[in-house]
């Protein structure tokens, strides 16, 4: 079960600076921890996040083991046209999740 919480304003005026907030469900296991019997808990993290606005990449981030579980990533962009934001998270063990949100620009 992986779920994402996306917050993009439903409407904006052309040229407005808007805030985009994303929260992704993930344990972000660092790979530096041990079990009670001394075995290493294998690393399991999200390694990359990207956001496309009507097909054009507007934001990208690389994630590392020091980032807490359930990464919250927020950033700003300029509302240029109505359309779709697409989000993609990629990580260890074949982790791959997508989400999208629409915006109307007047």
């Amino acid at each position: 079960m992986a779920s994402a919480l996306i917050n993009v304003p439903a409407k904006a005026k052309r040229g407005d600076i808007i805030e985009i907030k994303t929260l992704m469900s993930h344990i972000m296991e660092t790979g530096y921890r041990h079990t009670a019997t001394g075995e290493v808990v294998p690393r399991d993290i999200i390694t990359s996040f990207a956001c496309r606005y009507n097909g054009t990449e507007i934001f990208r981030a690389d994630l590392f083991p020091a980032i807490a579980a359930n990464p919250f990533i927020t950033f700003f962009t300029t509302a240029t046209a109505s359309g779709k934001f697409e989000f993609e998270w990629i990580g260890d063990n074949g982790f791959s999740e997508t989400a999208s949100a629409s915006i109307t620009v007047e």
Partner: protein
Amino acid sequence: MRLAGLIVLSALFAVDAASAEIPQAERRSGYSFMAPDTRAMQDDDTINPGMLWVLDGEKLWARKSGVTNKACADCHQDARASMKGVAAHYPAIDKALGRPVDLEQRINLCRTTHQQATPLPYESRELLALTAFVAQQSRGAAIEPGNDPQLAPFVAKGRELFMQRQGQLNLGCTNCHDENWDKRLAGSAITQGHPTGYPLYRLEWQSLGSLQRRLRACMTGIRAQAYDYGAPELVELELYLMSRARGMPLEAPAIRP
């Protein structure tokens, strides 16, 4: 004479214990002890990671399970209506068992009896998700453990455990949460211990967790042997804490440091 002295002494202690309880007007949720940044996390559902479990719980609510191939929704329909205010009344008496059960146990009883499915393990993502989803429907509702007279002896037992000194540090819950809640333990605020937001997301856990997890952690902290998950003692303690927080609004899923 010695006996009389003992009686006087124990009477003094009884008065002392009673006077240590927090007056109604001074009760505060753990929320009010938090830093502004942590409060902001709880205030905005698009930042609150606890909502990830609520989303999962919403999916599980509709998922068919067990021999009878029924989903929670098949009996309880829309949780927004059917589960409104429910979590504020837990732990509650289970008629068949004749003792109080908490929300997690109620969900598992529903699974085993009505869905004929295997109970979900304590602190599993699925059980926390369902609990969070159900509890969220009571957000803002006043905590109101039932007035069922059957509950009274269990509340009393929970209170006894709350007052009982235990562990290598020889501390009772009351020594911190009634007597020293206005102080700090190292850098952390000692709160009044009102369970207003469970299941809640603790930044320290990096996960959602139940009230039983919190109670067990406190017991380990005073170097006592923690009760197992689902132990009647833990449920009685939960029940006493809820009766102690009577009237305070439920915040689930809350954030705590």
